[in-house]
């Protein structure tokens, strides 16, 4: 019988879904505004309601993003030689049979991704709030508009890769977002340090 260990708490799972859901809404409405997509606006009712949805999804997004700070930031900031090694081997993603050094509850790539997400997420949210709440204040809106769009471009590149790595590229990963548990053997190969710390 497969033995499972808990990798994510209920709070982490819910928070991650809020983050994912709000990001999805923000990104597609963002594209709607960027390219003035009438069909996109009609899905949400109109450009007026699409704006409301975009803005308030931003509120959910920043709350969920700040929630992740408690979940991932400490480990994302703890770097060791193994993390550097992991990067040197590209996480074992570029060829079969490469052995990577043992990783913590999240691997080096995930640590870097998280730090990237935290920073770009704060930038896109803060600039979004300036555009929303300081509308008409030209200098502030101009710089925010620029930052908002730079962060948008980075995120629409990074998030699909994140989704790919968390689903198709790593079978068995997606269940963490559903059950929060993973088989011990699965975890041992990917998160050796963490499994060892738990005493398995």
């Amino acid at each position, binding site marked *: 019988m497969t033995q499972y260990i808990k990798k994510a708490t209920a709070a982490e799972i819910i928070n991650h879904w809020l983050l994912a859901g709000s990001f999805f809404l923000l990104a597609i409405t963002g594209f709607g505004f960027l390219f003035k997509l009438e069909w996109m606006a009609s899905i949400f009712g109109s450009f007026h309601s699409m704006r409301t949805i975009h803005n308030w999804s931003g509120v959910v997004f920043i709350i969920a993003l700040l929630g992740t700070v408690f979940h991932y930031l400490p480990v994302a900031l703890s770097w060791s030689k193994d993390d550097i090694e992991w990067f040197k081997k590209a996480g074992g993603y570029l060829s079969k049979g490469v052995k990577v050094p043992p990783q913590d509850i999240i691997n080096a790539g995930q640590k870097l991704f998280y730090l990237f997400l935290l920073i770009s997420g704060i930038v896109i949210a803060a600039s979004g709030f300036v555009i929303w709440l300081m509308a008409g204040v030209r200098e502030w809106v101009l710089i925010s508009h*620029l930052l908002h769009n730079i962060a*948008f471009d980075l995120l629409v590149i990074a998030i699909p890769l994140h989704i790919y790595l968390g689903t198709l*590229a790593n079978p068995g990963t997606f269940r963490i977002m559903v059950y929060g548990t993973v088989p011990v053997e699965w975890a041992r190969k990917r998160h050796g340090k963490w499994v060892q710390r738990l005493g398995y």
Partner: protein
Amino acid sequence: MARKALLISPELCIGCRGCQTACKAWNQLPATKTVNKGTFENPPDLTPNLYNRIRYVEVPSETNMVRWLFVSQRCMHCDDAGCIRICPAPGALFKTKEGAVAFDKNKCIGCKLCVAGCPFNVPRYDEKDKISKCHLCSDRIAEGLSPACAKTCPTGAIAYGDRDELIAKAQKAGYQKLYGEADLGGLGVLYAFKDAPKLYGMIEKPEIPETVLFWHKVLKPLSYIGLAGAVAAAALHYIAIGPKRDEGGE
């Protein structure tokens, strides 16, 4: 259709402000109470209910103690309009066939981004946060009439007509280069200045903010190219290298 324009000649303007009044009458805009700040200029700035106004510039000098310049200030109906570039709501701001930059309040979502895109600080907002500005009387010119301001102006300081003809006429009158002739693809409001534009309270070289152009030319296309690239890279990886499976153990 030939592009229409206004030709403003400050030296002809007598500061009667008939244009301000006519504009309000045609566009049904209420008057606003203001206070005297020691100048005849009134109101002090464009408002959602004031689409055009005469700027009173006093430039006293040794030789001329009372030089007074009257300059019509309003939306310039830019050919390359920063407001249209940045506006995220299609149809909120649009070009008419005469070349006027008009607006549709029903389509405006009140984000006020156009303020950031406009080089001339023109867009204003009504009490519902909807764009409000000069639209070159787009309803009148569509019917072949001239805008209310030009129609009213008793001295010809605001002249309306085919843009090319206005430029030719001004050149004949001795104005080598009009303000707005070439800026931003050519403005729909041209100025016959005898002195540096700055003196008349105009920016020397109007430009759409760099950041807006960069966003338009680079960041916008990069968004879908980046997204498509990321998806393609993932697909390629899946096919070429494949997922990390556990088979066979370590």
